[in-house]
C-alpha cells in the first residue's frame, strides 16, 4: 500500500482494508505519512498475545518483530485508499510504544484507556492520567490481560482524578454529573466559567465501564454478535454488522447477496430512527416541545413498523454471523416503502417549521462552532465531522456491498455549529429514505444466511461500518478453538468527545446541553 512517497508493508485484507505488522518506529513514520496525506487515526487498541504460539501471531502478514509472545498495539488509520490496520508486537515486560497523540490528538484517550486495561504504555505521552479506571481496580492491575483474576474483589478506594484547573479572578467551577436530572447516561462535566461564559470544559467518562471487551473472551461467535450489538444500543445494527463482517472475514466466508442488502436496509432504518429522535431532542432543548413531540411521534411510528416487520423495535439480533435472521416479504416491502414516503413528507413540513422559527434558528446558528480546520486537526469524525467539512463517509467513499451499487450521496456542511449538525441530519434522513426505497425495489432474491466456515487456526478480521454517529470499527481475533479471543469494538465517540469540549468554549453555560445534544455521543460505546 502506498501512502505519500513510501510503499508500506500493508497487504490487502478484504475490501478497502489493509493489514500489516511493523516495528514501532515504522508505525510512527506511517502515522506521520497518513497525517500528511490528510488521513486520520480511527482506532487504537492493544491486545495480550502472550498465550499465542509465536507462529500464529504471524497471521496474516509476516511478523517483522523479533519479540514474540508479548503484547501488541493496533492502530486503524483512515487513508485515501481505505482503512490501514497496522500492528506492532511489544515485549511481555514493560510493553511500550511511541506516543501517537502528538500526531493525532484523538489518540490521547485511547492510549490512556489502553494503559488502564492492558498496561501498555505510550512513552513520552503528554497526558498519562488514567481514563477508564475509576476505582474498581488498582493502578497496577490490568483487567484485560489474560492472567487477570476475575474473582478478585473490587477495590473501594478511589484515587482522585486530577482535573486541569483554571485560575483567575472571578473564575469558578461547576461540576455536573455523573448523575443528572434527566434519564441520560452518566458522565461528569467540569466547567470552569466566568459569569456565564465557559472558559474550559473537561469531561470525565468511564462511569459505564462494564468490561465488555473482557466479556467477549471465550464467547462463541453467535453470542458475540449479540454482545457486540449491545456495546452502544442506539447503534445496534452498525455494531452487529461490523462484528459479523469481521468474523466473516476472519473465517473467510461470505454472506448471501440478499443478506448484505438486508443489513444495509437495517442500517439505514437505524439511521433514520436516530436522526428523527435527535432532531426532536434538539427542539426540546430549546423548549420547542412541539418539535420534540412531532419528531418523536414519527420515530415511534418508525420503530413500531420495525417491530411489526422484523420483530424488534431497534432491530436487535437481526444481524447474525453469516447473514441476517429475518427476511422481508412483498407486503412488508410495500408497507415500509409507503411509510418511508410518509415520513419523508412529514419531515419536510417539520423542517419548514424549524427553518422559519426565528428563535430556534437563533439558538442553533453560531452555537457550538467547530471550525473545519480544528475538526481536521483534532480528528472530528462521522456526522459531526461532516457538519464541519470533514467529508468522510465510508458508504460513499469505501462502499461495501450493497452500497457499491447504490451511489450514496454524502451530506456535508461548513458551518460546524448546531445548525449545521441539524442540517446534516435532515439531509441524511432524506438520503437514507431514498436508499431504503431503492433497496426495497432492487432487493435480490436468495438465501438470507450462509453457514460460517469453521476456523481451524487463529485468525483475525476487521469490520468497518458507517453507523449513524460515524464509523464503527470492530476488530476480532478468533482462537484456534473457534471461540473469540479478542474483540475490540470502536465507537466514533472516542474521537468526538474531546471536540465537544472544544466546541463549547466561548459559549454560555445554558447552551451546553444543546451543543451536547447536537453531537449526541455515546457513553457506553466508549466506556466499554
Amino acid at each position, binding site marked *: 500500500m502506498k501512502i505519500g512517497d513510501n510503499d508500506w508493508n500493508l497487504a490487502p485484507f478484504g475490501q478497502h482494508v489493509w493489514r500489516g505488522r511493523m516495528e514501532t518506529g515504522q508505525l510512527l513514520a506511517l502515522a506521520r505519512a497518513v497525517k500528511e496525506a490528510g488521513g486520520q487515526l480511527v482506532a487504537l487498541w492493544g491486545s495480550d498475545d502472550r498465550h499465542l504460539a509465536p507462529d500464529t501471531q504471524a497471521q496474516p502478514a509476516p511478523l517483522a518483530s523479533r519479540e514474540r509472545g508479548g503484547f501488541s498495539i493496533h492502530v486503524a488509520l483512515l487513508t485515501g485508499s481505505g482503512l490501514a490496520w497496522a500492528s506492532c508486537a511489544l515485549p511481555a515486560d514493560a510493553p511500550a510504544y511511541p506516543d501517537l497523540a502528538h500526531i493525532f490528538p484523538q489518540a490521547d484517550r485511547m492510549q490512556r484507556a489502553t494503559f488502564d486495561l492492558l498496561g501498555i504504555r505510550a512513552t513520552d505521552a503528554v497526558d498519562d492520567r488514567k481514563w477508564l479506571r475509576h476505582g474498581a481496580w488498582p493502578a497496577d492491575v490490568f483487567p484485560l490481560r489474560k492472567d487477570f483474576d476475575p474473582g478478585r474483589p473490587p477495590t473501594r478506594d478511589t484515587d482522585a482524578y486530577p482535573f486541569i484547573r483554571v485560575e483567575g479572578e472571578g473564575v469558578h467551577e461547576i461540576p*455536573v454529573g455523573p448523575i443528572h436530572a434527566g434519564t441520560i447516561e452518566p458522565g461528569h462535566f467540569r466547567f470552569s466559567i466566568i459569569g456565564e461564559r465557559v472558559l474550559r470544559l473537561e469531561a470525565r467518562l468511564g462511569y459505564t465501564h462494564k468490561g465488555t471487551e473482557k466479556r467477549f473472551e471465550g464467547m462463541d461467535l453467535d453470542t458475540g454478535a449479540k454482545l457486540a450489538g449491545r456495546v452502544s444500543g442506539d447503534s445496534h445494527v452498525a455494531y452487529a454488522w461490523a462484528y459479523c463482517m469481521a468474523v466473516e472475514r476472519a473465517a473467510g466466508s461470505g454472506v448471501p447477496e440478499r443478506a448484505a442488502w438486508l443489513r444495509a436496509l437495517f442500517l439505514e432504518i437505524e439511521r433514520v430512527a436516530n436522526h428523527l429522535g435527535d432532531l426532536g431532542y434538539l427542539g426540546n432543548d430549546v423548549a*420547542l*416541545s412541539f418539535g420534540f413531540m412531532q419528531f418523536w411521534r414519527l420515530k415511534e411510528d418508525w420503530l413500531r413498523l420495525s417491530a411489526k416487520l422484523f420483530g424488534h423495535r431497534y432491530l436487535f439480533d437481526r444481524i447474525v454471523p453469516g447473514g441476517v435472521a429475518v427476511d422481508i416479504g412483498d407486503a412488508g416491502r410495500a408497507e415500509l416503502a409507503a411509510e418511508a414516503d410518509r415520513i419523508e413528507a412529514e419531515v419536510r413540513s417539520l423542517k419548514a417549521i424549524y427553518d422559519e*422559527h426565528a*428563535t430556534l434558528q437563533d*439558538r442553533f446558528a453560531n452555537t457550538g462552532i467547530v471550525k473545519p480546520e480544528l475538526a481536521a486537526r483534532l480528528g472530528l469524525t462521522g456526522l459531526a465531522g461532516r457538519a464541519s467539512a470533514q467529508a468522510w463517509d465510508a458508504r460513499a467513499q469505501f462502499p461495501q456491498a450493497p452500497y457499491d451499487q447504490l451511489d450514496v450521496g454524502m451530506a456535508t456542511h461548513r458551518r460546524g455549529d448546531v445548525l449545521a449538525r441539524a442540517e446534516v441530519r435532515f439531509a441524511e434522513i432524506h438520503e437514507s429514505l431514498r436508499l431504503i426505497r431503492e433497496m426495497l425495489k432492487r432487493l435480490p432474491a436468495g438465501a438470507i444466511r450462509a453457514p460460517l466456515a469453521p476456523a481451524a487456526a487463529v485468525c483475525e478480521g476487521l469490520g468497518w461500518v458507517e453507523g449513524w454517529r460515524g464509523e464503527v470499527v470492530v476488530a476480532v481475533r478468533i482462537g484456534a478453538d473457534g471461540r473469540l479471543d479478542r474483540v475490540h469494538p470502536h465507537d466514533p465517540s472516542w474521537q468526538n468527545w474531546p471536540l465537544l469540549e472544544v466546541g463549547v468554549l466561548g459559549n*454560555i*453555560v445554558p447552551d451546553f446541553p444543546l451543543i451536547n445534544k447536537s453531537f449526541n455521543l455515546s457513553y457506553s460505546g466508549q466506556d466499554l
Partner: protein
Amino acid sequence: MQAGILLQLAQTLLAILLAPLLMGWVNQCRAWLQGRSAPPITQPYRTLRKLFHKDAVIAHTASPLFRFAPYMIFACMALAAGIVPTLANDLPFSPAADVIALVGIFALARVFLALAAMDIGTSFGTLGARREMLVSFLAEPALLMVFFTASLISQSTELPVIVDTLAHQEFAIYPSLAFAAVAFWMISVAENARIPVDNPATHLELTMIHEAMILEYSARHLALIEWAVALKLFTYSALGIALFLPWGIAGQGELGMLPLALVAMAGKLLLGGAVLAFLETVSAKVRLFRAPEFLGTAFLLAVLGMLIHFLLEV
C-alpha cells in the same frame, strides 16, 4: 363590614385552592397543542398530595433559612392573592397595599427563594439565583412602569380605585393601556418562569433559572413552592385581568353580582391560560442573554404607554 371580611377570606381561599387548577389547565392546553394526550386538569393537586406525603430530605449544610423560605414564599403569594381583586372589588385587605407594595411583596418572596437557593451551596442553586436576579432586576422596573401607566388614568396606585375607574365608570378607550397590557404580558412570562424566558418543564440543570433554585427542595417544602408558583401565576393573571379586563368584577357591596363575577373570572382565566399555552407552544426559549432584550422591550412598551397617556389622554 363582616360580610366584607367573609368575602375577603372566601376570595383568598378560593385563589389558594383554585390556583393549581389554572396550572393544570395551562398544562392541558399545552399537551393538546403539542398533539399529545393531556394529563387530567387536576394533576397539579395530585402532585401536591404526593409531595405532602413524602419525607423531606434536607442537605446537611442547610441553615434554618432553607426550611423557612418555602413558608415565607407561600405566605407572600397568598397575601398577594388576597390583595388583588378577583371576584369583588374594594375588600377590607385591599388598602393594605397598593401596586407598589405588591411589587415589594413579590420581591420579598424572590429574595427568600434566591437566598435559600444559595444557602445550600450547590453550584446549580447559585447559578439559578444569579440568573433569577438578572431577570428580575429588569422585570421589576418594567412592572412598575406598567402600574404607573394604569394609575395615571385613575390618579391612584390603589388597585380598587384603578379597577373601579376602568370597570364601573363610563366606557373609554385608552391606547396607553394597550401598550401597558403587552408589556405586562411579557413581564408575567418572565416573572412566572415561562417560555421564552425559562422552561418550567426542562430537566437540563444548566439551562434552568427557577427550577435550578429549587433543585434541593423535596416533599412539603417543594409542595409549598410548587403551590406558590401556581399561586403566582394565578395572581399575575388576576392582576392582568384587574388592570386590563376588569369588567365583571363586583363593586363594593354588590353581592348579587358575585355569581356573574365568578363566571366572568373563570372565563377570562380559561381564555388567558389557553393563550399562554398557545404562545408557549409556538415559541422556543431565547438564549439567556436575549432575556434582557426581551424585558427591555417590555420596559420600553410600558414607557411608551405612559407617554401616549400624556399625549392623547390628558
